[in-house]
């Protein structure tokens, strides 16, 4: 970047992803940036955003300064409309009640597949990662937004292991796998916002963040990106966005 912004990469991520949400949506949010970004959106342009958490929470309204350490903690139920079993909240996805699944990602590939299980061979892994949690379920059933740090080792051509399916091997391979609904919609990183080509379902940059060049994005990506001529620019965080965000996470647990 050409100048040092007065916000952290995590703050940028949270704000850019919050903007992807629209009022009235039902969002299934994972822990970390998604939880924070969804809560931020509720405080900004989406007062009627309904947040679901994997622990079994419907309509959460997380309190400032009381961010939960996971999506299974009692803090997730602050001012919730409903608590239910954790399998039952996932079944809402299967029935189709969820507009957007919203997760972080450890490793993603050109078709938006996510790996959070193994680095290396699954049977003799170099690194055993924590696993899917509800990630596979959310990604199998909902339209997805993923928020993650942009690093070359995280953006790979093909993930070692498909934990949470994106568009599988592109084109209609996702549908052919028995997943007729949902799929990767947006990937938000500290460098850019990405969408997916509607035919090939390959990832493509939609807009670059302030001060970020195409070369920077390509250099931090482990495979060749196709830039459309009309790639746009994201608006930088506003003061209001930053101040509300910092009010939500005064201990800077998530925003670094």
């Amino acid at each position, binding site marked *: 970047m050409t100048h040092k912004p007065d916000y952290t990469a995590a703050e940028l991520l949270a704000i850019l992803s919050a903007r992807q949400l629209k009022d009235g949506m039902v969002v299934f949010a994972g822990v970390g940036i998604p939880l924070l970004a969804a809560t931020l959106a509720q405080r900004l342009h989406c007062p009627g955003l309904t947040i679901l958490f994997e622990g079994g929470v419907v309509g959460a309204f997380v309190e400032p300064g009381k961010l939960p350490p*996971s999506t299974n*903690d009692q*803090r997730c139920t602050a001012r919730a409309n409903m608590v239910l079993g954790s399998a039952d909240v996932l079944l809402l996805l299967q029935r189709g009640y969820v507009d957007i699944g919203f997760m972080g990602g450890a490793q993603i590939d050109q078709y938006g597949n996510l790996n959070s299980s193994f680095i290396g061979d699954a049977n003799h892994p170099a690194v055993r990662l924590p696993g899917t949690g509800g990630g*596979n379920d959310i990604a*199998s059933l909902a339209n997805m937004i993923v928020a993650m740090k942009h690093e070359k080792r995280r953006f790979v051509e093909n993930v070692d292991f498909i934990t949470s399916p994106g568009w599988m091997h592109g084109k209609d391979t996702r549908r052919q796998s*028995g997943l007729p609904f949902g799929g990767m919609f947006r990937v938000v990183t500290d460098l850019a916002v990405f969408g997916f080509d509607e035919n090939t379902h390959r990832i493509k940059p939609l807009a670059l963040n302030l001060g970020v060049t195409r070369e920077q994005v390509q250099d931090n990506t482990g495979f060749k990106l196709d830039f459309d001529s009309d790639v746009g620019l994201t608006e930088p965080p506003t003061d209001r966005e930053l101040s509300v965000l910092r009010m939500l996470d005064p201990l800077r647990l998530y925003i670094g």
Partner: protein
Amino acid sequence: MPRLDATHRHEPTQVNQVKPYEKLRRDLAQRDRSLREKVVTLDDVASFVRDGDLVGIGGSTMSRTPMALIWSLIRAGKKKLTCSRSITSSDGDLLFASGACEHIITSWFSQGILWGVSKVMRHHVESGKARFEEWSHLAMGMRLRAGAMGVPFMPIRTMLGSDVLKQRPEAKEMECPFTGERLLLVPALNPDVALIHVQRCDAYGNAQIDGLQFVDIDLAMAANKVILSTERIVSNDQIRRVPDQTKIPFFTVDAIVEVPFGCAPHECYGVYEPMIRHMEYYVGLVNKDPIAGMRDYLDRFVYGPKSWAEFLDLIGIEEVLAAARLGNSIYDA
């Protein structure tokens, strides 16, 4: 109704093999399901679990973890347990590192999202000392639901296409006889024993859970034996006053232990939040050295204390009380 038959030898579950219905019901019929008091001490719990059992653990991540029960099983030197939990936290570290368990069935395993990947889990799994069998969260829930319902499988629409499924030949893909769609059938999970912590229950085992239930209701129904730990044992009259809140009926329960703060250092909804300072101390210790650090922790906090109260004292009364104040604050709205 004498249902216990000394000649009936209950064999431990073949892990991940669906129990035939005849065995499922014969095992259940052997249990004394009559209305009787079942209160035991924490030290008695080990006698309800056999080496090699499939043990279903209630709660999720750091919430309503039946930590005192796990602690007592480790202290009793249990071996070769297979454990299942929807989402596994530091309880899994303790089970692996103590040698009580060499196989965990779960959807996610690390101490908590705040602390990155568990080095203890990595050490055991990457070295081949122990197995981490991965299913999706919904699949874990539906496996228990099938077990709870007394049917051999549930159909679901996830895991399809993913590499998670490729690792799980125990699940079967099926063409729906009604719609022709592709479905995944996940096999019923019927643990030999379930460990569940609740806010309150009576001496018979009628248990009330406040707030997040996770998969504990299905777990109680699916298991062939249930051990409850509870913040408080209350009168049956109190249970009957709010029957809406009863989530586990007494006849599924085989033993009850009253253990205040029985989830420490994890949380119990409405009673205490996680004891984060202790968790941070723990993670610092074991992530620096997953072998020696874990040995230190086990010696000092699991094998060392004479009682659960002494363990709480090691965490520190100040931290315990602070967690309790936060726990109760969920009702402040």
